[in-house]
């Protein structure tokens, strides 16, 4: 049969590779900056866009979607062509995908810093960008499936399965979690409220880790590791089991982010059970990777690419062992809301994702430029800088997490809380400093890589279209004795649909009952919708990213009830679009902040936090004292809330601003009594109104009579 000649498209891989490096550095710089703000709050520059609450979402989004995203696209487009023995389906789609994605990143960077955010972690981007993501994602999918359909290789190698599952699952997660009601251009409210919003968000959040940071990178591992080690993967059978069980089990585990919260108990338990089971496929994959190097460990000593991969895979194993442990309720009681979680995700982010990205860059660049790496020694130095960086980053945070959490839970012999919240923060400042040193080392390593790669490119000559040849695929008449899996494995669309079915099951079984079964969210009669002023204040709370440091979820523990007040109930959040439970307590919980301090305290605290709590590491929000509330948005906000079933009286949108001003004037008058002069339509007044409301509704509820069961 005639052999066909064709060309691999290296140019698109190069473009995604460049984007990986550039946004990787940007994302790491943003990370270093927010890390420094922990011990030097003045480094927020007292400038709204560079405060922690806005810079932290920029860091997480840049690392996840710009750095790891672009690295995955580069690696997928490189390996997919070679595994399919075909050029990418359409050059035009490739470039639409590339520029579309970079435009989304640019839009994200600008809007996040300006404070446009949905307030849901890792899904902060506002609705127009959400739509753009969907469109570009579809382009990526068509381009990938098109390439697979015109392939010259009969079988779909397991890496491609991981790519397909990534595509379909991320599409599902993104669409379901981004259902929101637009209020205006760049402002929307989550369709879901309170407990349901939390469940959907962490179903998304957990599986963004699974299907954006794990499955594509596992696909890359299954291609680039055999290439770099020049031997097939240890067990292909194991990789099949790895694939199906991973995508099946992962999707159920989301509720482990909500243990001891107001989420129904059964959903929490389900999340825990599946999290524990996740150890099996994850470790199956890790061992499959490491065993591939059996008898070839001498190569690891020589080859920096393999060094990076070994540490990456080991970090994958560590993070996926640690994750299930942290989802045990007794461990979670300590780890949750603490820096332990941050240490945990950075083992995954710096170790698994970062090192895998570096490894494939070191592999692809010399190949595409037809040369060898400029300096193996520099690459090895990068490896060590990175590895030491990871250790210096993670270990102090584990320490900090344990220490702080145990301090939160300490009581004196008289039964009083032993430590003020602030004492537990100042106590771990040295850990924060060490962590930022680790991060700086890691960044320094990445800069060494940039130099090394630039030199490598200068040394070689870029091959934009790499010649290859292969026999075309002939349509085979089905053999009699053919197992159905081989049929599946040859038919990408069947695989796509099966993957969707497998990942949809878990989500459906968790989410649907929480929405349909009324008993899951018991209503509390005294919980009322927010007033217009409080609603505006709440939107400012979201805009400034307060949830990145403050939780609004008191777990039913003795210390939390003693420190913050009555534990949180599911029925308290029914009007919270979006929920603001948070995931980290750099500052204290705010679920019962309402009425705890006088208005003047909040005013002074926002202007200069350390004047009210000496030693506080909270940034200043001085601009809130001058900026005016945008009252022109009130009516639209009320109407959006009504659409979602929040019971404002009919026609309330027209008179909402009258109520808003009345309440604002009252707060301003109240402040005046304490010798603070302010206009009543400043942002600070709205924020005070909101903070004074949070968690107070339940206090109007008559005390329930104890029920014996």
């Amino acid at each position, binding site marked *: 049969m005639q052999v066909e000649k064709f060309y691999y498209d290296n140019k698109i891989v190069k473009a995604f590779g460049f984007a990986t490096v550039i946004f990787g550095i940007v994302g790491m710089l943003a990370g270093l900056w927010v890390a420094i703000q922990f011990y030097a709050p003045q480094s927020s520059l007292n400038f709204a866009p560079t405060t922690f609450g806005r810079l932290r979402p920029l860091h997480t989004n840049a690392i996840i979607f710009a750095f790891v995203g672009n690295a995955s696209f580069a690696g997928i487009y490189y*390996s997919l062509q*070679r*595994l399919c*023995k075909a050029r990418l389906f359409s050059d035009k789609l490739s470039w639409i995908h590339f520029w579309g994605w970079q435009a989304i990143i640019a839009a994200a960077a600008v809007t996040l810093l300006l404070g446009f955010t949905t307030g849901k972690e890792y899904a902060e981007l506002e609705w127009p960008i959400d739509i753009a993501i969907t469109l570009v994602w579809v382009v990526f999918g068509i381009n990938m499936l098109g390439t697979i359909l015109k392939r010259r*290789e009969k*079988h779909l*190698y*397991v*890496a491609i399965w991981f790519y397909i599952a990534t595509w379909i699952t991320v599409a599902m997660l993104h669409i379901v979690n981004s259902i929101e009601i637009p209020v205006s251009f760049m402002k929307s409210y989550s369709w879901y409220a309170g407990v349901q919003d939390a469940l959907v968000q962490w179903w998304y959040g957990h599986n963004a880790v699974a299907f954006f940071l794990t499955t594509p990178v596992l696909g890359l591992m*299954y*291609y680039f590791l*055999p*290439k770099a080690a*020049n*031997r*097939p*993967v240890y067990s*292909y*059978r194991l990789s*099949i*089991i790895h694939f*199906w*069980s991973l995508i*099946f089990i992962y999707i159920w585990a989301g509720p482990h982010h909500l243990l001891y919260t107001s989420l*129904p*108990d*059964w959903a929490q*338990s389900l999340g825990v059970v599946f999290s524990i089971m996740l150890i099996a496929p994850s470790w199956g994959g890790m061992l499959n990777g490491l065993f591939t190097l059996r008898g070839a460990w001498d190569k690891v000593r020589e080859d920096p690419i393999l060094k990076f991969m070994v540490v990456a895979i080991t970090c994958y194993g560590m993070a996926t062992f640690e994750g299930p442990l942290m989802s045990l309720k007794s461990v979670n009681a300590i780890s949750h809301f603490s820096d332990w979680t941050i240490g945990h995700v950075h083992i995954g982010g710096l170790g698994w994702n970062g090192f895998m990205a570096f490894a494939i860059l070191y592999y692809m660049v010399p190949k595409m430029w037809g040369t060898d790496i400029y300096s193996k020694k520099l690459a090895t130095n990068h490896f060590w800088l990175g590895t030491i960086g990871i250790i210096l980053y993670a270990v102090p945070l584990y320490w900090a997490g344990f220490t702080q959490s145990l301090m939160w839970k300490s009581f004196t012999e008289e039964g009083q809380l032993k430590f003020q919240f602030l004492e537990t923060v100042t106590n771990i400042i040295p850990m924060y400093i060490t962590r930022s040193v680790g991060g700086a080392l890691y960044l320094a390593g990445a800069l060494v890589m940039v130099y090394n790669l630039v030199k490598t490119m200068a040394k070689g000559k870029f091959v934009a279209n790499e010649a*290859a040849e292969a026999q075309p695929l002939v349509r085979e008449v089905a053999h009699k004795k053919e*197992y*159905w*899996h*081989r049929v599946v494995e040859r038919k990408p669309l069947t695989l796509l649909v099966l993957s969707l079915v*497998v990942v949809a*099951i878990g989500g459906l*079984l968790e989410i649907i*009952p929480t929405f349909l*079964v009324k*008993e*899951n969210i018991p209503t509390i009669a005294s919980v009322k919708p927010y007033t217009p002023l409080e609603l505006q204040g709440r939107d400012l709370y979201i805009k400034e990213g307060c949830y990145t440091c403050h939780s609004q979820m008191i777990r039913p523990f003795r210390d939390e009830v003693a420190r913050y007040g009555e534990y949180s109930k599911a029925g308290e959040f029914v009007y919270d679009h979006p929920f603001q439970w948070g995931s980290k307590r750099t500052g204290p919980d705010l679920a019962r902040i309402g009425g705890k301090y006088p208005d003047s305290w909040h005013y002074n605290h926002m202007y200069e936090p350390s004047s009210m709590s000496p030693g506080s590491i909270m940034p200043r929000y001085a601009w809130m004292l001058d900026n005016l509330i945008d009252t022109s948005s009130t009516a639209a906000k009320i109407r959006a809330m009504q659409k979602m079933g929040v019971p404002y009286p009919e026609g309330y949108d027209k008179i909402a601003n009258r109520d808003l001003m009345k309440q604002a004037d009252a707060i301003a008058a109240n402040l005046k009594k304490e010798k603070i002069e302010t206009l009543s339509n400043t942002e600070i007044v709205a924020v005070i109104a909101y903070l004074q409301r949070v968690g107070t509704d339940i206090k109007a509820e008559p005390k329930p009579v104890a029920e014996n069961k």
Partner: protein
Amino acid sequence: MKFINYLEKISGIDIYGLTSLLIFVLFFVVMLTWVFKTDKNKIKEISRIPLDN
């Protein structure tokens, strides 16, 4: 709120548990069957795909 509350209060809630368990067991049985029934040589051949270009 304990799980038992739902079992007691909601009619037909047990169907969720039963279906989940059934799906779960079936899923793994089917997957493991086909993984171990596949021809060894075929598997070997597929696992070498990344290496022959």
